[in-house]
């Protein structure tokens, strides 16, 4: 998992529409079974208007593939970056995103809500 990330952001809204939780956790398992490093991000708390409900998943493979969503596409890029670190060090982490966090995080939620996301490694 060295070097640049190869995920493609423009397709994310399409992915959000298509992937049910079923596919996401199934895909995470399939990636892990194929020997890939995998992380799972889960929305654990929301405040205000948040685009995805608590329990929504985003699965990320070390090769840059991902499926699912934790927001309307606003913070997935940062979650994927953190997930890569998580796959490397194995440490779970809790990420927080909101409009107030623009200085701390590259991304914010344009809707004005705030979310907390738990990221853990599978395996």
């Amino acid at each position, binding site marked *: 998992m060295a070097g640049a990330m190869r995920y493609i952001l423009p397709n994310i809204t399409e992915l959000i529409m298509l992937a049910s939780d079923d596919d996401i956790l199934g895909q995470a398992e399939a990636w892990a079974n194929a020997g890939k490093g995998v992380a799972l991000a889960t929305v654990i708390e929301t405040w205000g208007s948040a685009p995805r409900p*608590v329990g929504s998943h985003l699965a990320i493979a070390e090769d840059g593939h991902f499926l699912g969503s934790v927001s309307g596409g606003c913070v997935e890029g940062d979650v994927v970056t953190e997930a890569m670190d998580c796959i490397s060090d194995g440490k779970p982490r809790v990420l927080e995103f909101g409009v107030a966090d623009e200085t701390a995080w590259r991304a914010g939620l344009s809707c004005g809500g705030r979310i907390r996301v738990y990221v853990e490694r599978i395996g």
Partner: protein
Amino acid sequence: MRRELLAELNAARRERRAAVLVSSLDGQVQRLVTPDTLAGDPLAEQIDAALRAGKSTLVEHEGTSFFLTVQVPPVRLVVIGAVHISQALAPMARLAGFDMVIVDPRTAFATPERFPDVQVIAEWPETVLPPMKIDRYTAICCFTHDPKIDDPALEQALRADCFSVGALGSRKTHGKRVERLQAKGFGEADIARIRAPIGLDIGAITPTEIAVSVLGEIILSLRKKPLRAQVAQ
């Protein structure tokens, strides 16, 4: 998360079994809890509440934060009778997010032309319900008025602990139905679970209005009260 745990969670979903993944946010604890293993769990109360609500949630226990990933099967609606009410109910059930199937052995009724957007099975309930594995996340509505078709479906729905069991028919018709079910060995508690006449009393007259009252009753059973089978546990 251990890969075996993810595999178990996925298997539970494929097999329409409820399960809750308990994860402490410090990464120290992670386990899968099912309705069968709920009783001995230190978070039993919170897990039970989350299962009833059907929603994942964050809880605190003795100073530690735990996330409960709740997985309940999608709610199915099995309608016995490819009748006019079923035609009105099909699009409403779809809008409400239910997975609806219609079963009616009368091939003149159960045609794809009459039901373009919903699965229709032209078979007897006793043949088709067992392989469908109806369960506590399934609602059954009997609309045929014909005991040969409705009764076997009701019997299976009661045995499978379906969360909502209803049958169309007057009180007199239901009285006779109760006698038949009693003769088959069903007790008072079982029979009391049948909503008959089916549907909330909103004064419904047309098939569409009756479909609204039926859908309202199913949602009431699903959301307002804990699922019956879970209370019993």
